[in-house]
């Protein structure tokens, strides 16, 4: 029974577009799934003690690689995605190898990766003749003359198509998460995150193990960037790279729960529902309070980290596990 529950949930989720909900609610569901995928990608390394403040770099590389190749040379975003994956894997290796080799961990790792995401943002802005700079960029449309889709250009005007594409990608992300969760790599990395030298002394190749999850996480994030660009059809350096989006990923995961599979997904849903809930609650007045959702979000994050460090889902699962355990007294 308990095993059937996730499958039933998945079937229900897959039926969402057929239930006749409007375009806007469907857009919200797609956004939730897309960010859930990106947050899951981040958490693959984050949960193992590699807290990166630089994933905006990989998201930005993905988004801009696909759009620039398409706009300037007409290269299909499918090939663009391959290029994005290759570039982000190289960047992850270039930044990861020295970091892990020289044991840059904790604060220092977070701040080095933060520098990386700023470099990416600044390079995109500085190449304004090619990228459009801070004004952003739009992929050239391939949907002339009433076409609703173009597989080669990865452009679809029907939201339903995007729903299923991103649903599959999100499931893929969860699958990778689960694969790593059940692998020796996770055990090795948990040992590393607790005591690096002790882990090395029992024969774990610390640098190689860390590099592996870093590259996996970076490549997945950059794929998220490609999809974001193709779905939104608009990107700009602030929304896909730099410190803002990098921190948003970290905090989405923290809010949902870093150590459980669906934690990042809950974080993504929570973040979007918060903004949408306020929009509904305030109705007409919403425009008068331009950043209220962000203010509440910031406040909640502080409270979460102080009182609920395992995140929403992590805390909920703990409560569920402890529900019927008989309490023995000490005596």
């Amino acid at each position: 029974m308990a095993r059937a529950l996730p499958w039933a949930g998945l079937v229900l989720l897959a039926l969402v577009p057929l239930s006749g909900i409007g375009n806007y609610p469907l857009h919200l569901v797609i956004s939730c799934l897309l960010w859930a995928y990106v947050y899951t990608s981040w958490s693959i390394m984050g949960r193992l003690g590699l807290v990166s403040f630089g994933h905006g770099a990989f998201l930005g590389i993905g988004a801009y690689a696909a759009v620039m190749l398409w706009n300037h040379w007409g290269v299909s975003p499918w090939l663009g995605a391959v290029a994005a994956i290759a570039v982000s894997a190289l960047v992850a290796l270039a930044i990861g190898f020295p970091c892990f080799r020289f044991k840059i961990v904790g604060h220092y790792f977070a701040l080095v990766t933060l520098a990386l995401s700023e470099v990416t943002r600044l390079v995109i802005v500085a190449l304004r003749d090619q990228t459009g700079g801070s004004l952003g960029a739009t992929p050239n449309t391939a949907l002339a003359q009433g076409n609703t889709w173009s597989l080669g250009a990865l452009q679809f005007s029907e939201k339903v198509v995007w729903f299923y594409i991103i649903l599959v990608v999100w499931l893929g992300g969860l699958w990778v998460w689960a694969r790593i969760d059940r692998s020796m790599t996770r055990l090795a990395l948990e040992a590393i995150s607790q005591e690096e030298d002790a882990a090395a002394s029992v024969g774990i190749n610390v640098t190689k193990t860390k590099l592996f999850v870093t590259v996996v996480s970076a490549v997945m994030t950059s794929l998220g960037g490609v999809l974001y660009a193709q779905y939104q059809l608009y990107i700009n350096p602030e929304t896909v790279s730099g410190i803002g989006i990098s921190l948003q990923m970290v905090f989405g995961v923290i809010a949902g729960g870093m150590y459980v599979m669906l934690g990042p997904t809950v974080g993504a849903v929570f973040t979007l529902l918060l903004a949408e809930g306020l929009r509904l609650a305030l109705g007409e007045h919403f425009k008068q309070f331009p950043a209220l959702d962000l203010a509440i979000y910031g406040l909640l994050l502080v409270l979460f980290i102080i009182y609920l460090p395992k995140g929403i889902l992590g805390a909920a699962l703990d409560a569920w596990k402890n529900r019927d355990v008989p309490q023995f007294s000490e005596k």
Partner: protein
Amino acid sequence: MDVFDIFLLEAVLNGILLGGLLALLSLGLNLIFGVIDVVWICYAELIMIGMYAVYMLHVQLGWPLLAAMAAGVGIVAVLGALLHQFIIRPVLAAEPINQLLVTGGVLFFLQAAATLAFGIEFRNLGVRMAPVAIGEMSFSAPRIIAFAVAVAGVAATYLFLTRTYVGTAIRAISQDRQIMPLMGADPDRLFVITSAIGGALAGLAACLLVLQYDIHPAIGLSFGPITFLICVLGGLGNLVGGLVAAFIFAQFISVGGFFFHIEWGYVLAFVFFIAVMFWRPQGILGGK
């Protein structure tokens, strides 16, 4: 060729002026890390609040500029103490990364609070000062003032830490958190004082920045990263290292911006930072 050289010299001198300001920017953050062992990711947002405070008191309430600035320093100092008392203290015993993250939540909150209170328009004090010309070179007056005040601020902090009783206690507790309480130093009180000083330094930096730049809610994001990187480059918590790093960074930005475009100056500075991290992860002056 002659003209070229004089402009290069101007860029170098401007870099030195910028270096003084960056040194002050990073000093408070560095002090807090050195003593309390916590990185305030929201440090640049405290500076933004200070800028808005000066703007509001001077432009909207009509206070004299110097009074508004003094009040601005005070407000941010109080904010720093409150931040420590209510947000850092509960997580002092938690994992280091949680301390980094909790101030990230504060970052979002302050940024949003500023947007709610002041909107996203760019605002400025409307103070105009004539540029100072030396030979064929010209320098902006606010930059020269900022440099002078920043150097004075750094010197005052140094004197406070070395010549006063409280300053000595702060330095002692940064070296050994376990032993000092046995010697009668109260870490809670010293941490709050240190946070207030860090806040006051942020407030002072705000007064200098507000003379040069427009204020908007996201301004913290534009100079926050560079402030962290300066501290890390100098060796987190190493005050002298931070000063050296500030001047190195300023030269990259100023001279790099002179040869290429200003963003490339920043890119060079960041790439330099990453390269140095691999060479000396503990910072240029940090000990092993």
